């Protein structure tokens, strides 16, 4: 290993990247300037530094010129630093003495940071000179080998978290699955049917939830939240706060007698999206896992007034325990997967659609709950204002999406679920009800999705390529009137319907900011977890050992959530399977359990 006391021999390689760099900066001038930089022993150019030829040229130069440190001026370290570290290492150079600096962002066509060639030259010179200075001061970063924990923490028990947990548990890891709600399954458990196959969501999810419930390698921690994380890959220590259910989970059989007895009704904003009611003591739904009761302490009469405890008298197994308190447990984890999913956008701020003012304007998630035969209305689709079957329904797409005033991104799933709901209504619920879908673009890009769109047209659903400006409620009938421009007709339509469904944006789930603060992970400009590279490293975060999957990383459907979950599980396995890992010593010293200072 080269020592750092020896005279430093720094080589700089400037990459053309074909025309990506060479087309936007004067390479000759750059070479000239770097040649004259103090501390630089050797300068060369490569057409593609990362190519096999380029790497051989770099390795030959290391040998011929006896270089002990190299700087490559090319593209982003997130893309190729590892490539060049490996290249240097096989020519005998310590990886920390290989640096890659990004000068391509200023020269490449299509890059938002591109500048004119003169500016690119000045910036490149400056950046390379800084790198030379930095390199000349660098010392060897000592590496240490540490043992890794064979356990994984998965945060979020939706379909993505479940898939990752099952994959890892099957591979032999011990998995702690932390879920904030009293049940696992996430949104998918409440969707009734799922595109593009329209199979029953609970039926295809149940094998996963049920298996997770009994899998010896999975420890389900429902009604719990992660409150602190310390450490580094292989050795995280985690604090999990378990909220009191006021039920002894081991003795509760899920019989539901307590629920029947409870006199206190509450609007269920979680499991029935505000459409239906539950009791203060409740079992979330029939297929809930775990199927155990839970007491909502904000609404329980005994907790509020000190009198009631009717449920306690009713319980045949004495499972109710009003003395339970919140408690915090500590766990070890070799790696962490974040799968905290999404929330539906609340469209109240889009006042033009009157969501909070008009009875008959609902959201698609509410509609999903209404259509569910196990949902709050047992699958009956009736107008909230008068309980009548709506004769016609309009769906409005992109509410709170693709909108510079709210969220600029496309939520990517709402075109498909609008089609799904239209199909269900037409085929199974109200076959004679006219449905109008007002859209901007119909985005059905997934596998078999276009056929799904065609199938929806086959059912005679009306598609209007326009966005209503405003909805007015007719005071007597509570019907909803809107004007939509129909460009296919070149005319304005005056649409009057009995019910409106808003296809609302997909947002990062509540508490994402807080959790990412605890984890030290970065969020993107829309508040979703930021991946290291959108194409090449989609499930890794800026913290090694913490991975993301599902809707927590960005809006996505179930197929894509599963793919990411499997990818994250595979990343974890890749890091932990040897049981030990080589890390820079400073990481272990500054973030470990026995950190200094």
């Amino acid at each position, binding site marked *: 290993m080269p020592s750092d006391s020896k005279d430093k021999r720094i080589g700089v390689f400037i990459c053309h990247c074909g025309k990506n760099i060479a087309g936007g900066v004067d390479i000759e001038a750059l070479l000239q300037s770097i040649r004259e930089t103090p501390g630089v022993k050797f300068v060369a150019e490569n057409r593609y530094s990362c190519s096999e030829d380029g790497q051989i040229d770099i390795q030959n130069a290391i040998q011929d010129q006896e270089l002990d440190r190299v700087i490559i001026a090319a593209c982003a370290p997130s893309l190729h630093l590892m490539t060049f570290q490996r290249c240097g290492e096989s020519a005998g150079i310590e990886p920390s003495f290989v640096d890659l600096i990004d000068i391509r962002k200023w020269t490449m066509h299509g890059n938002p940071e591109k500048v004119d060639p003169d500016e690119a030259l000045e910036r490149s010179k400056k950046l390379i000179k800084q790198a030379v200075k930095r390199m000349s001061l660098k010392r060897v970063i000592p590496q240490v080998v540490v043992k890794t924990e064979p356990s994984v923490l998965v945060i979020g028990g939706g379909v993505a978290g479940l898939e990752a947990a099952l994959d890892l548990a099957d591979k032999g890891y011990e998995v702690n699955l932390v879920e904030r709600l009293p049940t696992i399954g996430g949104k998918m458990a409440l969707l009734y049917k799922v595109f593009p196959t329209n199979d029953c969501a609970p039926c295809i999810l149940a094998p996963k939830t049920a298996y997770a419930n009994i899998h010896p390698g999975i420890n389900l921690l429902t009604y719990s939240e992660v409150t602190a994380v310390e450490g580094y890959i292989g050795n995280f220590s985690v604090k999990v706060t378990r909220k009191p259910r006021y039920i002894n989970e081991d003795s509760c059989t899920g019989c539901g007698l307590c629920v029947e007895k409870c006199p206190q009704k509450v609007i269920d904003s979680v499991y029935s999206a505000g459409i239906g009611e539950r009791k203060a003591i409740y079992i979330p739904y029939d297929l809930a896992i775990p199927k155990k009761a839970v007491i909502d302490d904000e609404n329980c009469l005994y907790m509020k007034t000190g009198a009631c405890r009717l449920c306690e008298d009713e319980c045949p197994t004495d499972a109710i325990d009003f003395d339970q308190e919140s408690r915090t447990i500590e766990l070890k984890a070799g790696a962490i997967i974040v799968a905290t999913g999404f929330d539906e956008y609340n469209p109240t701020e889009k006042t033009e659609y009157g969501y909070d003012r008009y009875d008959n304007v609902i959201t698609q998630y509410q509609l999903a709950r209404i259509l569910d035969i196990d949902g709050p209305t047992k699958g009956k689709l009736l107008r909230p204002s008068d309980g009548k079957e709506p004769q016609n329904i309009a769906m409005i797409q992109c509410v709170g999406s693709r909108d510079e005033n709210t969220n600029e991104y496309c939520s990517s799933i709402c075109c498909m679920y609008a089609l799904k709901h239209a199909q269900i209504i037409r085929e199974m619920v109200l076959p004679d009800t006219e449905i109008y879908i007002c859209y901007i673009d119909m985005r059905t890009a997934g596998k078999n999705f276009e056929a799904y769109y065609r199938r929806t*047209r*086959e059912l*005679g659903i009306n*598609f209007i390529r326009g966005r209503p400006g405003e909805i007015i409620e007719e005071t007597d009938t509570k019907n909803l009137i809107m004007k939509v421009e*129909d460009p*296919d007709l070149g005319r304005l339509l*005056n649409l009057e319907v009995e019910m409106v469904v808003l296809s609302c944006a997909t947002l990062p789930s509540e508490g994402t900011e807080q959790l990412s603060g605890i984890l030290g992970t970065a969020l993107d400009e829309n508040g979703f977890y930021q991946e290291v590279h959108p194409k090449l490293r989609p499930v890794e975060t800026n913290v090694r050992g913490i991975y993301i999957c599902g809707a927590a990383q960005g809006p996505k459907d179930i197929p894509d959530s599963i793919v990411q979950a499997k990818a994250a599980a595979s990343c974890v396995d890749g890091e932990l399977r040897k049981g030990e890992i080589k890390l820079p010593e400073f990481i272990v010293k500054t973030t470990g359990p026995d950190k200094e200072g």
Partner: protein
Amino acid sequence: MKPDDIPEDMPEDIPEDMPENISGDDSEETVQVPNLDPAFKYEVMRNEGAGGLKYCFACGACTASCPIHEIDHGFDPRKLARMVQLGMKDEVLSSPLIWYCSACRNCEQHCPQSVEFFNILNVLKNMAAEKGYAPYAWVVQTRHLMRTGMVFRTDEAWETRRKALSLPPLQLDGEKVRELIELSGLDELIVKKRP
């Protein structure tokens, strides 16, 4: 029907409401959706060859390839398909536009959804004729066909020229065509009055 029963092409037959220049659907009026007939599209699609309409996603390939649209932008297959989908029954059936088609079937060739718009137009024309909306020129032509078996009118000059070319005289008898037309029920449509 005997040749004598077929009404003569009387100029006074021309209905008063027949617009002189029937080009262009330039209506800018707001479409009142509650007044439309959402079942209209099903009524149309029930007919042989017209079921493809449900797949139309308004791409406009038909319009872009239609030679009639090129001459008269008022005739727009995509718009007509749209009007049917939305249930604009009265406006579509009373529109002279549906009779403009030259039957080239370019629209059908270019449609990415195999909609067969030409067939849909035929269904619309039948429905329109049923309601008495057939254009006068078409009615007169059909009557002529039934009488003479010829689509175009003949005059004495024809006979003279045929003689000069040693061709036999024309047999101006529409019997066979008449049979066909009667079988199809078209004979009843041509005597229908516009509403």
